[in-house]
């Protein structure tokens, strides 16, 4: 694995804060077209059982080549490590002129792991303008435990990000991020290829940590997400806890948020 292709600590800190990373034009247009062809002809079958090594999936198909691109493989490695497990995939089709209505949801309310996490990758094989209804993500929702589609009542949240992108763009996201498919107002079918992967190793320092001590890491971790409102401090504490997990450093802190509440001295001294 080329170290220079791995995520940086600053990028990982951004992932820890917002729950996703976006990379534009990761996949060459020619390969996008080949993958789109497979999706539209329903040629992407599961090639290995759920839970098998991802490396066994799609040895010959264009979609396999997409995920074996060096930069794509390096991002996957940074988040879930070597030899991830294939969970499932879906070539999500939103046909031309389809209205979706509200469908904000979190995929896996049954996944109550505290810190370990799966990733999902959203790959857009075609140019995806606003009116074609690319996936809407809500940054900073990865630590919120809600029951799948029970958040459907929420239509708009400040800071929401819709995938408006060129072909070859990928979003790598923590599986607990709230998201929603949107309506396709164009005359062309829209595909978004989703892949879920499970780690098989401890998710610790799997990225390029050369910049771990950069001040920008703390800046990213400390960023305020406007919709958190009064809950910002608790969100920040959860983020710090997550960063401790990712770095294997149980002492990591920002502005004594945890250091303060973990300070329960037992030293007994006699009075004056």
């Amino acid at each position: 694995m080329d170290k220079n292709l791995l995520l940086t600590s600053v990028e990982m800190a951004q992932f820890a804060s917002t729950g996703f990373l976006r990379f534009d034009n990761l996949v060459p247009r020619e390969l996008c077209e080949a993958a789109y062809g497979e999706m539209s002809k329903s040629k992407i079958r599961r090639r290995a059982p759920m839970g098998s090594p991802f490396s066994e999936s799609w040895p010959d198909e264009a979609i396999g080549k997409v995920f074996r691109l060096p930069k794509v493989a390096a991002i996957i490695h940074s988040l879930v490590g070597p030899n991830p497990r294939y969970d499932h995939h879906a070539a999500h089709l939103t046909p031309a002129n389809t209205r979706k209505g509200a469908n904000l949801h979190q995929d896996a309310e049954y996944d109550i792991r505290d810190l370990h996490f799966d990733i999902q990758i959203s790959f857009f094989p075609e140019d995806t303008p606003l009116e074609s209804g690319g996936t809407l993500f809500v940054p900073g929702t990865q630590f919120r435990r809600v029951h799948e589609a029970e958040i459907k009542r929420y239509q708009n949240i400040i800071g929401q990000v819709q995938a408006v992108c060129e072909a070859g763009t990928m979003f790598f996201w923590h599986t607990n991020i709230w998201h929603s498919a949107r309506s396709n107002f164009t005359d062309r079918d829209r595909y978004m290829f989703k892949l879920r992967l499970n780690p098989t190793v401890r998710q610790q320092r799997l990225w390029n940590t050369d910049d771990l001590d950069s001040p920008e890491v703390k800046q990213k971790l400390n960023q305020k997400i406007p919709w958190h409102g009064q809950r910002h401090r608790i969100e920040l504490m959860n983020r710090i806890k997550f960063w401790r997990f990712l770095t294997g450093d149980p002492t990591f802190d920002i502005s004594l948020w945890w250091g303060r509440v973990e300070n329960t001295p037992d030293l007994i001294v006699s009075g004056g």
Partner: protein
Amino acid sequence: MAETQLRQKLLFLYLGNSSLESEVVGWSYYDGTTDEMFEAAGEDAEPPYNSVLDAMRDGWRVIQVPFIKAPQVGREYENDYLDFEFVLEKMEVIDG
């Protein structure tokens, strides 16, 4: 002759804090006077009002305010749903 009906519009405003003057961090709109479906508008979407108070000054009537409650013991660091959900309504007379 068409009969007139009183129909309801509901506006859900999610605030960053419990005060009705707090900033809006999320919103939903359900309009019982039309068959139009809601469309989320992406990252450039602006809330219809800056606060619940602003909406009240525009004729919206508050019909529910959120409870303020302490977290359960052992769940002090857990967050889940949006916290400060205010429900507002406007009634509108339409031709049936």
